[in-house]
């Protein structure tokens, strides 16, 4: 039905044309779910935009053929293309928060879309909308249709977005990361829905995602892209199980498996750039060995345990009346947890379960309303009473989720790394601080010349390594990692996880590893704690949790996580 041959998309730029898509061919049959997978920058979304005719200017289709049924998509006038969009090709976007108009009711948005493409009465359009919502799985649709988008939960909202895409009976739906913003439970419902629609309505889906698990779960065929080029294409089972192309193989190897724990990941050779290549040996006093020696020479020898008991955090919620106090929102409810010295504790849960709040309580950003914290044998003062010079400020270090915002973009890498050394008074001499910064870069696998560059000159994975290096230079005993790899591509995730594993083993750090990705947690942690709505559901050793989960919620989480088809 949809046929693309030799599609080439170029973006004219200051240094000549940039070829975003290079001669990619693929086809989607009616009722087929075709996966388009690749890491960021692979050109997945660009292909979707080219098909629907909404390429971001100044990008343009330089070459190739695109046909939908009998229609040549490239020869359409803007008028015809406009008519075709929504009518024959629809789109589902990543974020259901922003793809619905918050000021219009669901009914208005559906009716508007139907009437834009068909000459039907409002009453008829409304009836069709209600029927559609029921089909999509929204209960009591006749009443719910009058609601505004914010009155639906994230998963329900994504269903409404799918209803919007469906309401004109399109032949093809392009779904751009439709479940990336959703929790696993909701994700699996939405994926089931997509699968059902493809079957019952014979709609072709082009499913764009970076998540191999999602690809494995629902697609019929898959196309693997890298840097705008087609790497491999074929039936999903075949491509995922017996990949032929070297890149696909390494990509599969980098995906953390849910069902077993690996010692190390194989890392695809995609990220090696000039600054990353093993060049000349680092000069004396600036090598990884020096950094290691310095790190272990400190007062600390092993990681200390971390404990919290009865911790409750309340945030003030929405004010319902001008005269009453706002309701309290309980983010953490009587949470007690202890992390053994030198071990890795995985903390899992859905978004909103309070994972990050625990990190903020431990680092002193959020004041708990009740409870007690401890570090090693000593008390850990909560936010308000933790002084600026409190020793825990050095002993507990944090690695953030987004490496793009956790490094100050206006500072050089050398200054960023020297800051903890200067701030905690670990190294008085500026020259030595610089040497140490260079040495630690070597330790985390970056070349020493990175020291004079700015963060924006590095890729996400390299930045995350710099962030890890910065936290290490404080000579911490506890590292809190809040979703350290969820903003990264799988191959880079594998590198960062390897680095964290190595460092943990070498320096005996205690790590609190927060993640919503169960497969990653399995690879990293010795113990696991499951959090739901601010309460602890289950806690135990990692192997027990993954092989024999006790709580119903844990079992549900595990069963819903899309795994590799093995």
């Amino acid at each position, binding site marked *: 039905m949809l046929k693309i041959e030799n599609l080439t998309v170029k973006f004219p730029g*200051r240094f000549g044309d940039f070829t975003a898509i290079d001669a990619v061919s693929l086809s989607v049959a009616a009722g087929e779910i075709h996966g388009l997978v690749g890491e960021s920058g692979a050109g997945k979304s660009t292909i979707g935009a080219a098909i629907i005719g909404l390429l971001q200017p100044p990008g343009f289709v330089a070459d190739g053929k695109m046909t939908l049924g009998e229609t040549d998509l490239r020869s359409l006038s803007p008028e015809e293309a406009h008519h075709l969009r929504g009518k024959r090709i629809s789109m589902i976007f990543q974020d259901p928060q922003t793809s619905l108009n918050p000021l219009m009711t669901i009914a208005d948005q559906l009716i508007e879309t139907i009437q834009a493409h068909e000459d039907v009465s409002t009453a008829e359009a409304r009836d069709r909308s209600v029927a559609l919502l029921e089909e999509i799985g929204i209960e009591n649709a006749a009443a719910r249709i009058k609601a505004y988008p914010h009155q639906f939960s994230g998963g329900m909202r994504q269903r409404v977005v799918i209803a919007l895409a469906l309401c004109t009976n399109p032949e093809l739906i392009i779904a751009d990361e439709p479940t990336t913003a959703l929790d696993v439970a909701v994700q699996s419902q939405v994926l089931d829905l997509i699968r059902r629609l493809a079957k019952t309505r014979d709609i072709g889906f082009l499913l764009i995602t970076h998540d191999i698990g999602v690809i494995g779960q629902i697609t019929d065929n898959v196309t693997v892209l890298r840097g705008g080029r087609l790497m491999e294409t074929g039936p999903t089972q075949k491509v995922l199980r017996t990949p032929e192309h070297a890149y696909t193989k390494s990509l599969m190897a980098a995906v953390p498996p849910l069902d077993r724990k690996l010692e190390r990941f194989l890392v695809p050779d995609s990220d090696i750039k000039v600054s990353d290549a093993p060049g000349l040996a680092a000069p004396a006093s600036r090598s990884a060995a020096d950094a290691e020696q310095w790190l272990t020479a400190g007062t600390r020898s092993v990681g200390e345990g971390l404990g919290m008991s009865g911790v409750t955090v309340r945030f003030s919620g929405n004010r319902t009346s001008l005269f009453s106090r706002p309701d309290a929102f309980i983010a953490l409810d009587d949470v007690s947890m202890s992390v053994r010295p030198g071990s890795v504790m995985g903390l899992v849960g859905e978004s909103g379960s309070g994972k990050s709040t625990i990190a903020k309580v431990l*680092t*002193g*950003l959020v004041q708990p309303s009740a409870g007690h914290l401890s570090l090693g044998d000593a008390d850990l003062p909560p936010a308000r009473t*933790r*002084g*600026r*010079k*409190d020793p825990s*400020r*050095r002993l*507990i*270090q*944090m690695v*953030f*989720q*987004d490496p793009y*915002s*956790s*490094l*100050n*973009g*206006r*500072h050089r890498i050398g200054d960023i790394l020297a*800051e*903890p050394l200067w*701030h*905690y008074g670990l190294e008085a001499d500026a020259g030595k601080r610089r040497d140490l910064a260079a040495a630690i870069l070597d330790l985390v696998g970056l070349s020493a010349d990175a020291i004079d560059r700015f963060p924006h000159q590095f890729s996400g994975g390299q930045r995350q390594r710099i962030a890890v290096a*910065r936290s290490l230079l*404080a000579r911490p005993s506890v590292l809190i990692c809040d979703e350290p790899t969820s903003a990264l591509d799988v191959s880079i995730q594998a590198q960062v996880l390897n680095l964290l594993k190595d460092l943990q083993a070498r320096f005996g750090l205690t790590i609190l590893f927060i993640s919503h990705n169960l497969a990653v947690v399995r690879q990293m942690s010795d113990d696991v704690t499951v959090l739901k709505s601010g309460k602890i559901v289950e806690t135990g050793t990692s192997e027990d949790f993954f092989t024999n989960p006790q709580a119903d919620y844990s079992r549900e989480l595990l069963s819903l996580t899309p795994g590799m088809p093995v």
Partner: protein
Amino acid sequence: MLARLIKSEPVYLFFRSPAAMLAAIVAILVLGGAAFAPFLASTDPYDLSSFSLMDGLLPPLWEGGDPRFLLGTDDQGRDMVSAILFGARLSLTIGLMAMAVASVLGVGLGLAAGYFGGRFDAIVMRIADIQLALPAILTALLIDGISRGVLPPAIHQDLRVAVLTLAIALSLWVNFARTARASVFVERNKDYVQAAMIMGQHPLRVMLRHILPNIMGPLLVIMTVDLASAILLEATLSFLGIGLPADSPSLGTLIRIGMQFLLSGEWWILWVPTLFLVALVVSINVLGDFLRDVFNPRLR
């Protein structure tokens, strides 16, 4: 360093924007003329002995004037070119100083308000709201009036430039405070600021070393736009007679003097300084808009 500057994005965009280049040329010419006025001007408009009433009201050269006076003379026989160069010097000095005072005051208060939030933020922002409700001219009149009442007349005369600068700065700081505060709200929740806070760095250090460099983009834009406002405000106040006296001609004073000749045929006395002021303010504004576009990638 220079090579990197030439290759950088703003410079690249600059050479592709004719409006920005033209504005930059005008601004540089005016700034240069003002800075080197004592060397460029043929007469000193402050020195009463250097010009003669006999040369009064000569038209510009192309209207059959005297070759010594390119743009003619005013009723006192002052050379218009010299008067404008010195006038621009005074206007720009006051404008730049007022802008500097306003930005230090505004950015300082805005940074602190955004960083600490809560009660301090509320107090600062309500003061800003009150300030915003008062027209700039009213503020200037108020300060001028107070300074007249408080200071002895002799000192007041000497301090006129300072009083005028302060009056203009006080009516402009709100822009800086609001912009800085809004930007801080965005930045302070970013992880790098949180990281600095977790480390227990001093609030001053977090604000000045971490947040300030990251919010400089919008502030630079406000600075250029407010420089133009400051120059205009000075001209307005001088035009109304509450700014500088006639013997120290700023652009505003020159325009006020020229007003008297609007209907008597000596048009150049009004029009030459007016057009000069318009060219200066427009070119600064165009440069400000250009900077805003450069610093806001979404507009590109």
